[in-house]
């Protein structure tokens, strides 16, 4: 036996409740079931009431549609927040990778590589930004230069 029914997850597309988003389930004479997503306007262009719209509201009740709409809005808001958070964390991970590669590059600079000041090297490794890496890299370079000069002057005395 065929039937036609509106599924109970319909929701308002607009706050003015002028459009419904709903699914119509149909069964034909040989028992095949199909579902059709529909966006129904309350009235047509001439202002005539849409009978399908009225049927959905009648069969599901405005209260259930309001509830579905509120739940969907909340769910969508949560999903958007999660997506935003994910993107933020993703960007943070990429930034850390870039920073890690940048530090490795710094550690390959001869003066830094050969530096014996473990404390400064450690600070460079723990740096949280490229600016901080640069700062400690310069400090190490200056210290190395100073050491070289001292060695030089010590050698000529």
């Amino acid at each position, binding site marked *: 036996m065929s039937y036609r029914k509106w599924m109970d997850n319909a929701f308002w597309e607009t706050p003015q409740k002028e459009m419904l988003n709903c699914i119509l389930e149909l069964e034909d004479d040989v028992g095949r079931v199909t579902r059709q997503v529909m966006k129904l306007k309350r009235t047509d262009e001439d202002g005539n009431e849409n009978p399908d719209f009225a049927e959905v509201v009648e069969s599901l009740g405005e209260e259930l549609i309001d509830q579905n709409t509120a739940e969907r809005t909340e769910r969508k808001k949560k999903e958007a927040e999660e997506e935003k958070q994910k993107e933020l964390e993703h960007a943070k991970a990429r930034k850390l990778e870039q920073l890690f590669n940048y530090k490795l590059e710094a*550690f390959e600079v001869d003066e830094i590589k050969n530096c014996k000041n*473990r404390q400064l*090297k450690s600070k460079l490794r723990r740096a949280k930004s490229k600016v901080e890496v640069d700062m400690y890299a310069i400090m190490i370079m200056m210290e190395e230069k100073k050491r070289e000069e001292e060695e030089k002057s010590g050698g000529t005395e």
Partner: protein
Amino acid sequence: MEPSKGYVLVASNKINFYRYAINLAESILDYYEDAKITLFCEEWMFEEQHRQLFDNVIFCGGHYREKLNGMAQSPYDLTMYLDVDMECEHEDIRHVFDELGDHDVMFSSLTDDRSYVYAEREFDTPEGKEKFTVCGAVCLYDMRKPIVREFMKDWWELTRKQMNYEWWPEGYSESLRAWDQFSLWWLLEKEPKYSELKQGIFEDDLRWNYYNALNWAVTKPKGEVVMRHYSCGLDKDGCIV
């Protein structure tokens, strides 16, 4: 007598692995000055100035999975093996050996929500679908136990054989051949003699092997990250300078 405790790092095949290893060793020493670290690396990679970072430097072959050979040759009773593309960022690294408890060997776990950081996890077997459940990027083990020594040796041997096309079980995808995860899975799941091996998962295991990409995963460690793993975002063949 107190068991000896130390960290094993292995760099082979690519010069970048050596550079990562130096950085990793220095980062461990940043937080644990007296740490004993053994480096396995190829002779051509080694720079003498780095010797002072290590308790031992042992030259090894250039196999892509030479790490398993290094693990099997650990000079320490209690050994923490670490993939070299990691960095230490917490002083708890000195306490890692306490995690072993009465286990023989410990790994970090490979759960469904962490799957996406692994190239291949699920696979078909003649008995049905399977998936890797432990990750070999970090491994804490007790070399005083004969079963552990044998296991480490077998893991290396089996991996070498599978990658050299000397061994492969029927009914398994060829794509798995490249992974030491597969030989690990085989030994733990299919080799009867290792049914007695007491394997465990680190408590709050993400602390000890936190893939940087997991930043945006749902799972995060309860405590602070000790070892951050940069595996996913590194160009291992690229020039650092």
